[in-house]
C-alpha cells in the first residue's frame, strides 16, 4: 500500500532556534530555549523529556496551539519550506489536519460525548474537504506537491465488496467443476445477493449440492478474502493485488475490480479509517458514542481522526500515557505501521526513553527547554553521551533488567519470631452487583497467594484485572464475597470485628496511593499529616510526635523545615514521599503501594523506588506493590502475581517469571515493555 514515496531526504519540517515564553504572574517563563531540529518526510522523530522539559510545548507550537499565555518569541518553523512563525490563525487552520495531524494525550476528554464516533471522524473529513472517493496521492511535480487522482486509487465501497466476493465465489465454484448457474438456482433467493456475508454459507452450499469438502474450503477462503479487503480503505489497485493472491488471474481480477469499484461513500470511508486504526467491526463502531468505547478504542478513533486528511506529519503527544501497557503496544504498533505505509512523518512526544527508541528513527532528548542530545535512536540509546541522557537511561525501568540492590547495609534483627507470611489470601472472591441487572460481576475470582515477610510482592495486571479490589480487601476496606484473608495467621473477619485487633491491624498495614495530588488533605500542614496516624492511635504527646515527624522527614530525605508547609507547595514526588513518611509513622510492617509511582516522572520514580528499597532493608518492611507496569516490577519485586480479569494467571519469583513466563498473557505483558530488546 505504500503509495507516497517521499523524495529522498526532503525536509518536511525545519525548526531553528525556537524559543517559547509563558507569562506567569507577570514573570516570563522560558519554556523552550533555542531548540533546533528537522523532520524529514516519512521520518519518525521522538522528543523525550520529563514533564516541564518543553517537549509538548514545542510540538504544540508547530500547529499554533500553545495553551494560555504561551507565545513564540524567536526562531523559525519551516513547514515544507514555508515559514510558519507569525502566520495568521487562518493559515494554521489550513495546516491542521491536512498537513499536520494530531493524536492528543488524553483519549477520555478529546472526543465530544454527544456525537457518534463516526460523525466526529466525518467532521475531520469535512473540515479538510477530503475527497472520500479517492485515496490522496501526492506527487512532486516540477518541485511542487500536487494531489493527483487516478481511478486505480478509488476506494472500495460496501456493496462493491459484497459483489466482488460473490463473483469470486462463483469463480471458485466453477474451478471446482460445478455448474454455477445450477447451484445458484438452488440457493434461496433472499441470500443470493449477500451469499458471501452469510454465516451459514457452508450449509447453503451443501444444500445446493456442493460437496462438504469443497463447501468448507470455499467458505474458509471467502472469510479470508473478506478480511483482506477493508471497505473505505482498500483501493482498486489493492483489491486487484488481493484477488491475485487468492488465485484470480490478473486480467479477471482487473476486470472485476474495474466493474465494481466506483469509489466509496463517506460512511464507508469513516469505517475504513477506523479499521485502519485497528478497530474491529468498524462500520458498527462508527455508530456508537464515545462512552461505549474503552480508552484504547477511543485512542484508535483519535488516530483515525488524526490521519483522516492524510497529513504529512502526525504529532503523537504521549498518545498512550493513559492506557494499559498491552494496549499501548498495540496502539503504537498500529501508528507505526500505518504511518509507514502512508509515508507520514511522525513527531512522537513521550517521557519514556524505551518507548521513544522503539518507535522512532531519531531521538531528541529535551531538558528544561533545551535539547541536550539528539541523534539516531539506537545510537543514542546504546551510546548516550550527555550526563542527563545517561541519567534518564539509568532511571528507565524498562531498560534495566535486574532488581535494585539496596545501598544500606544495616539489617533489622530478625530473631523476633513472627509469622513467615504477612498476608495469606485463600480462594479469595469478590463479586459486585452490576447496576440495573440481577447479574453479579466477579471482580476477583478464586485467588490464592501469600505475601512473605520482608519481601516485595507485586500484583500486576491491566485495568479491570481486579488488582485494586484485592488491595482494598487487603486493607479491610472491602469484604470478600467468599474465601478468606489471613493477616499474620488471623482471619480478617475476626480482625475487623474486634476493636483492638482492627486498631492493631491499622497500625501495622499502611497504604500509599497512586495520585500524589489526592492522598494528602490540602488543609493539613505536612507535619500534621504525618503525625495524624500517631494522633489517631494516641501514640506519644505532641512533643514526641514532632520529634518523630522530623525523624520521618529525614528518612524520606526532606528537610524538616517542611513541616509547617502545605501539600500544594510540593511536587508529585515530594508528596509521595510525605505519604510514605505518614505510612511509616507507626512503625508499620506492611506498606501497600497502590500504583504509588505510576504518576511520576522517570527520574522521580527511580528516586522513590530507591527510597522504598532502602527503607525495606533498614526497617524490614514488607511491600505489597500493585501496578500495571511490569518494568517497574522487574526492578523492585521479589515475587510476582499476574492477574487478568479477576483471575490469577501466574505467580512466582520475579526472575523466573521474567525469564520463563509460562502463560501467554504474561508473555504478552512482557513483550509490551518498550525498548526491552533494544539494548
Amino acid at each position, binding site marked *: 500500500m505504500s503509495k507516497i514515496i517521499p523524495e529522498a*531526504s526532503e525536509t518536511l519540517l525545519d525548526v531553528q532556534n525556537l524559543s517559547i515564553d509563558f507569562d506567569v504572574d507577570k514573570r516570563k517563563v522560558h519554556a523552550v530555549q533555542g531548540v533546533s531540529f528537522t523532520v*524529514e518526510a516519512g521520518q519518525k522523530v521522538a522528543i523525550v523529556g520529563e514533564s516541564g522539559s518543553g517537549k509538548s510545548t514545542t510540538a504544540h507550537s508547530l500547529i499554533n496551539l500553545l495553551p494560555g499565555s504561551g507565545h513564540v518569541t524567536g526562531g523559525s518553523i519551516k513547514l515544507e519550506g514555508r515559514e510558519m512563525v507569525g502566520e495568521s490563525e487562518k493559515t494554521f487552520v489550513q495546516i491542521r489536519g491536512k498537513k499536520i495531524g494530531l493524536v492528543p494525550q488524553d483519549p477520555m476528554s478529546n472526543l465530544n460525548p454527544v456525537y457518534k464516533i463516526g460523525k466526529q471522524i466525518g467532521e475531520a473529513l469535512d473540515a479538510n474537504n477530503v475527497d472520500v472517493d479517492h485515496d490522496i496521492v501526492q506527487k512532486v511535480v516540477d518541485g511542487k506537491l500536487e494531489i493527483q487522482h487516478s481511478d486505480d486509487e478509488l476506494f472500495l465501497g460496501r456493496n462493491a465488496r459484497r459483489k466482488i466476493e460473490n463473483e469470486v465465489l462463483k469463480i471458485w465454484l466453477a474451478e471446482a467443476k460445478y455448474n454455477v448457474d445450477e447451484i445458484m438456482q438452488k440457493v434461496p433467493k433472499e441470500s443470493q445477493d449477500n451469499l458471501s456475508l452469510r454465516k451459514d454459507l457452508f450449509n447453503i452450499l451443501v444444500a445446493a449440492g456442493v460437496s462438504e469438502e469443497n463447501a468448507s474450503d470455499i467458505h474458509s477462503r471467502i472469510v479470508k478474502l473478506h478480511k483482506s479487503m477493508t471497505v473505505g480503505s482498500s483501493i482498486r489497485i489493492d483489491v486487484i493485488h488481493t484477488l491475485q493472491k487468492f488465485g484470480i488471474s490478473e486480467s479477471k481480477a482487473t476486470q472485476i475490480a474495474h466493474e465494481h469499484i466506483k469509489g466509496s461513500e463517506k460512511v464507508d470511508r469513516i469505517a475504513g479509517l477506523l479499521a485502519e486504526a485497528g478497530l474491529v467491526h468498524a462500520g458498527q463502531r462508527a455508530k456508537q458514542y464515545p462512552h461505549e468505547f474503552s480508552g484504547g478504542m477511543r485512542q484508535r478513533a483519535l488516530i483515525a481522526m488524526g490521519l483522516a486528511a492524510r497529513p504529512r506529519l502526525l504529532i503523537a503527544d504521549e498518545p498512550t500515557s493513559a492506557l494499559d501497557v498491552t494496549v499501548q503496544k498495540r496502539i503504537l504498533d498500529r501508528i507505526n505501521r500505518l504511518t509507514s505505509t502512508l509515508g507520514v512523518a511522525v513527531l512522537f512526544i513521550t517521557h519514556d526513553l524505551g518507548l521513544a527508541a522503539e518507535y522512532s528513527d*531519531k531521538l531528541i532528548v529535551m*531538558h*528544561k527547554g*533545551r*535539547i541536550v*542530545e*539528539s*541523534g*539516531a*535512536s*539506537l*545510537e543514542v540509546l546504546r*551510546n548516550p*553521551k*550527555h*550526563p*542527563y541522557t545517561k*541519567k534518564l537511561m539509568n532511571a528507565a525501568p524498562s531498560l534495566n533488567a535486574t532488581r535494585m540492590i539496596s545501598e544500606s547495609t544495616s539489617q533489622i534483627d530478625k530473631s523476633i519470631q513472627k509469622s513467615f507470611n504477612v498476608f495469606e489470601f485463600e480462594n479469595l472472591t469478590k463479586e459486585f452487583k452490576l447496576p440495573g441487572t440481577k447479574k453479579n460481576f466477579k471482580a476477583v475470582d478464586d485467588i490464592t497467594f501469600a505475601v512473605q515477610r520482608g519481601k516485595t510482592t507485586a500484583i500486576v495486571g491491566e485495568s479491570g484485572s481486579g488488582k485494586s479490589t484485592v488491595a482494598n480487601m487487603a*486493607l*479491610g*476496606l472491602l469484604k470478600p464475597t467468599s474465601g478468606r484473608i489471613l493477616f499474620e495467621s488471623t482471619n480478617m473477619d475476626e480482625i475487623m470485628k474486634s476493636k483492638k485487633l*482492627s*486498631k492493631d491491624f*491499622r*497500625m501495622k*498495614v*499502611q*497504604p500509599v*496511593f497512586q*495520585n500524589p495530588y*489526592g*492522598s*494528602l*488533605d*490540602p*488543609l493539613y*500542614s505536612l507535619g500534621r499529616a504525618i503525625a*495524624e*496516624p500517631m494522633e*489517631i*492511635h494516641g501514640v506519644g504527646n505532641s512533643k514526641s510526635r514532632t520529634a518523630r515527624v522530623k525523624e520521618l522527614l529525614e528518612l524520606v530525605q*526532606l528537610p524538616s*523545615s*517542611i513541616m*509547617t*508547609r*502545605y501539600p*500544594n*507547595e510540593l*511536587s508529585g*514526588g*515530594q508528596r509521595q514521599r510525605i*505519604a510514605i513518611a*505518614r505510612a511509616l509513622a507507626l512503625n508499620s510492617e506492611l506498606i501497600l503501594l497502590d500504583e504509588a509511582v505510576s504518576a511520576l516522572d522517570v*527520574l*522521580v520514580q*527511580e*528516586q522513590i523506588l530507591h527510597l522504598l528499597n532502602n527503607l525495606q532493608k533498614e526497617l524490614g518492611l514488607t511491600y505489597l506493590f500493585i501496578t500495571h507496569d511490569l518494568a517497574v516490577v522487574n526492578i523492585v519485586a521479589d515475587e510476582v502475581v499476574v492477574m487478568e480479569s479477576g483471575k490469577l494467571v501466574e505467580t512466582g519469583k520475579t526472575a523466573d517469571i521474567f525469564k520463563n513466563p509460562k502463560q501467554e498473557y504474561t508473555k504478552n505483558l512482557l513483550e509490551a515493555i518498550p525498548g526491552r530488546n533494544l539494548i
Partner: protein
Amino acid sequence: MASNIEHFVADYDTDLSQVDEFHTEKEVTGLFREALAIIIKNPLFWISSVIILILGSMALFPGLWTSTDPLYCPIGDSNLPASSAHILGTTLQGCDVYARVIDGAKPSLAIGIMTTIIGTAIGVLIGTLAGFFGGVLDSILSRLIDIFYAIPFILAAVAVLQLFESSDSIWKVIFTLSIFAWVGPARLMRSAVLSVKQQEFITASVSLGATNKRNMFFHILPNAISPVISTATINIGAFIVAESTLSFLGLGLGSNTVSWGQDIANARDILVTTPSVLLWPSLFLAVTTLSFIFLGDAIREALDPKGRR
C-alpha cells in the same frame, strides 16, 4: 536512513540539580494564605467590606450617626423637604428620614446575619450527615430538603408569622426565615461532601484507622465547606431583602421597630410628591444587599481551587 542522522550532544553546562529537590527558600503558602493573598488583591472585597463595616457601626452605635429619635414623629413636620434640621427631609408622619434609615440598619443586619448563621449551621449538619452516611438516611434527608424546596416561601411565611402576630421581636422573623434558610446550604453541603468523600486522602485516613467522626469533622467538613461559606455570605443579602419583603407586606416587624421594608411601604403613598422618602431606604437596602453579594463573590473567588493555577 538512520545512519545519516547526526549525533548531537549539548554542552555539559546544563544544570543537573538533585532530582526533585525541595527548595526551602520558597515562600510558605498554605491554602489559607493563598486565599488571603487572592482576596486582598480584590477591590470588590475592600469596597464591600468598608460598606459593611459602616453599616455595622450604624447598627451597633446609631448614636455615632444621629441623635434624632426615629420614632419621634411630630405630625406638624409632615413631608418636610431636606433642611439642616432634617438633612434628608421627613416622612408623611413627620419622622426624620435620615434617622430612620440609620436605625433601619440594625434589624436588617441582625436578621440577615442571624438567619444565615442558624440556617447554615443546620444546613451544614444535615448536608454532611446525608452526604457522609448515604443510604436510607440520605434518602430521608434529601426528600426532606425537596419538600422544603417545594413550599412557596411567602405563603408559608405568612402562615408562620400569623402565629406570632402579637410579638414584636425580630426573633419571629429570624425564626420564620430560618425554616427555609437551611435548605440551600444543606443541598450544597451534601454534594460537596459527596465529592470530597471520594478523594484518596479520605480512603487514606480510613485505612490509617481514623473513626467516622474524625473523618467527617476533621477532613471532609473543612474541605467541603468553602462553597457554603461564600454562598452564606451572599445569602445574608438575600435574607435582608426577604425581611424587607415581609415588612413591606406588613408581616414583618411591628410598627415600633424601624425597618427599611416598612419605610418603603409607607413611602408608596407619597411617591409622586416626595420620591426622596422612598429613595433613601431603598438605596440603603440595595447597597447593603449588593455589598454582601460582592463580598460573597470575593470569598468564592479566593476559596475556589479552580480559580487558581
